[in-house]
């Protein structure tokens, strides 16, 4: 366990991501800037999941629900703003907006409430049951999104005009990367502070030894639930940003494949490492872009690579960079 080395590796990794975006922008390649934004956003979603999964030991196989809800919150609000149709007319009128900060607020609120409800029911179970019940809730929302016609159903919903951010031109690829990267840094800082606090210690203890936590007079249930909600809010924020990056939301953002991919980011990067999911998302996106560009058989290569990581390189990328994982 080498904290300094992990710190150095994390800083180098984040700097490399920002550097790649700056370089691509200077070279006049907005595509690579957007690719870096994609890494930052998917990494952000992974950072959220990691809080529940890596630190809290809650293996959620349904985090796509929050990613998709965040995306839909963004898509629906922007749609109402674009069509000048109020979202609510009763009991009071609520207009849509095309500003990112209020959209993020709504996305966070929606995901927080959903996570509180899903978590309160799911956390009554543990182990495989928890994995499966989170999957079941995500599937419910997925099927609802497919069959509900008002916002496009399975066709999805286009966001024709990217939402704005005070003082920035969000259409500029580098500015948008700045927003995504800023969000990632904020989430990392918040997660870091949280884990260093008494709450973080309780969350870790709820994973390692819930009985001891209970004898210390702390009920593990509310600790876990709080962790789950914060985790969902971060993932939902990522979903809202992803919707703006693509200009599009669809039920695919809610599918169980996406839940699986989020887990892949976390483990590929290294479980229980703060910056691990960013490394995992970067590796995944690079593989998808460059191997996927070269061969249609890339899922085979991805599958074998994942197997290799699980079987032989348990620390993931951060483990390779910074020594053994801290909770082995």
């Amino acid at each position, binding site marked *: 366990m080498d904290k300094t080395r992990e710190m150095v590796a994390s800083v180098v990794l984040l700097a490399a991501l920002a550097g790649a975006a700056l370089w691509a922008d200077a070279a006049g*390649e*907005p*595509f*690579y800037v*957007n*690719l870096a934004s*994609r890494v930052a956003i998917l990494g952000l979603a992974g950072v959220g999941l990691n809080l529940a999964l890596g630190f809290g030991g809650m293996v959620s196989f349904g985090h796509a629900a929050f990613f998709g809800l965040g995306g839909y919150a963004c898509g629906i609000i922007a749609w109402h703003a674009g069509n000048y149709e109020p979202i609510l007319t009763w009991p009071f009128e609520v207009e849509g907006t095309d500003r990112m900060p209020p959209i993020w607020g709504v996305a966070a609120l929606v995901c927080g409430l959903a996570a509180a409800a899903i978590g309160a029911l799911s956390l009554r179970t543990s182990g495989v049951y928890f994995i499966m019940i989170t999957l079941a809730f995500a599937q419910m929302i997925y*099927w609802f999104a*497919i*069959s509900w*016609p008002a916002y*496009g*159903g*399975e*066709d*999805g919903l*286009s966001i*024709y005009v990217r939402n704005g951010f005070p003082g920035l031109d969000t259409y500029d690829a580098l500015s948008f990367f700045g927003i995504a990267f800023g969000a990632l840094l904020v989430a990392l800082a918040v997660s870091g502070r949280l884990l260093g606090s008494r709450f973080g210690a309780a969350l870790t203890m709820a994973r390692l030894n819930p009985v001891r936590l209970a004898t210390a007079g702390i009920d593990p249930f509310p600790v876990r639930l709080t962790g789950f909600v914060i985790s969902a809010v971060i993932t939902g924020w990522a979903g809202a940003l*992803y919707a703006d990056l*693509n*200009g*599009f939301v*669809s039920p*695919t*953002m809610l599918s169980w494949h996406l839940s699986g991919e989020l887990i892949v980011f976390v483990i590929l990067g290294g479980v229980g490492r703060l910056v691990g999911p960013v490394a995992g998302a970067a590796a995944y996106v690079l593989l*998808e*872009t460059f191997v*996927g*560009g070269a061969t*249609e*058989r890339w*899922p085979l290569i991805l599958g074998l690579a994942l197997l290799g990581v699980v079987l032989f390189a348990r620390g993931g990328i951060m483990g390779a960079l910074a020594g053994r994982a801290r909770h082995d």
Partner: protein
Amino acid sequence: MKTLVAAAVAAVIAAAPAIAETKIGLITTLSGGGSHLGIDTRDAFMLAVEQAGRDDVTVIEKDDARKPDVAKSLADELIQKDKVQVMTGIIFSNLAMAVVPGAVRQGVFYVSPNAGPSALAGKGCHENYFNVAYQNDNLHEAMGAYMKAEGLTAPFILAPNYPAGKDSLTGFKRMFEGDVAGETYTKLGQTDYAAEIAQIRASGADSVFFFLPGGMGIAFMKQYTAAAVDIPVYGPAFSFDEIILGAVGDAAIGVKNSAEWTHDLDVPASKAFVAAFKEKYGRVPTIYAGQGYDTAKLILAALDKADPATDPDGFRAALAAAEFESIRGAFRFGPNHHPIQDIYVREVVAGPDGKPTNKLVGVALKDHQDAYAADCKM
């Protein structure tokens, strides 16, 4: 002398589009579920490009794996990194909705070889978006009109519970006009239709109309035949292309389906295409192959007249004029850049080699235009 030079210069300028290189981005589904549609489209598209023998056209192929976010990211890559001027290839409407609005707003031309969601045909139409295949409702409307003309009075209609499924049944009812014996929406991707088949049998319907694309249609047809229900079946061509017929087997024989093109159409260009496709790939081309081929022919014909990079207005006008030899015979665009065309009815019969195939039996609608054209303001 001066006029002669000017004429020569004008001639050189006019010939210039043939020299400038054009990049076409082709995003389609080459892996995962539904990939046989994308592969057929791609193969026929490349056949047309190869036949044209032009070295000034580069086609960049990408696989969207049927994921909207992947398709969107690939489109951005093609537009921003490879600087393509023309894009095409997408099969599924939900992917088209993710890609097309953004692409045409960045000044790229998008020519759709299949997906034709209503949102892009009506209010959301765009001057740079063209659809060579159909508006999604067309084949369903044609079947409604045909079944009405056949004197059927009580069809049972079913489709998956998603936007294309709802458009399908709405389109059918728009032209059928009468009441239906029953109307059911199934789960998208459903594989077992026992409950629905029991309902059909009990409904007293005189016919069944279904829209279940891909594997859903295969499952439905096999189970329907196994249940020994003797109510005749009708549908759009999507569940009866030659590759799906290979998986359904004899269960599909006798089914009537609507299509805007069929491989036994008596049009010289069509016969030449079918022969060339069979020669090169060793299989009968599906309607997706036919659409891919027409898409390529249209783009190539328009490139002869104008270079999209230097003269986008000329290229747009050339696309809209649609002066190419379509395998459907006559071909023209309506004001919303969607085809106005005949829609045929085919029957599934046992082919010469014993495998089921489609045979042309009639025309369902002449010069049909989609219902959304009036909403389009471009």
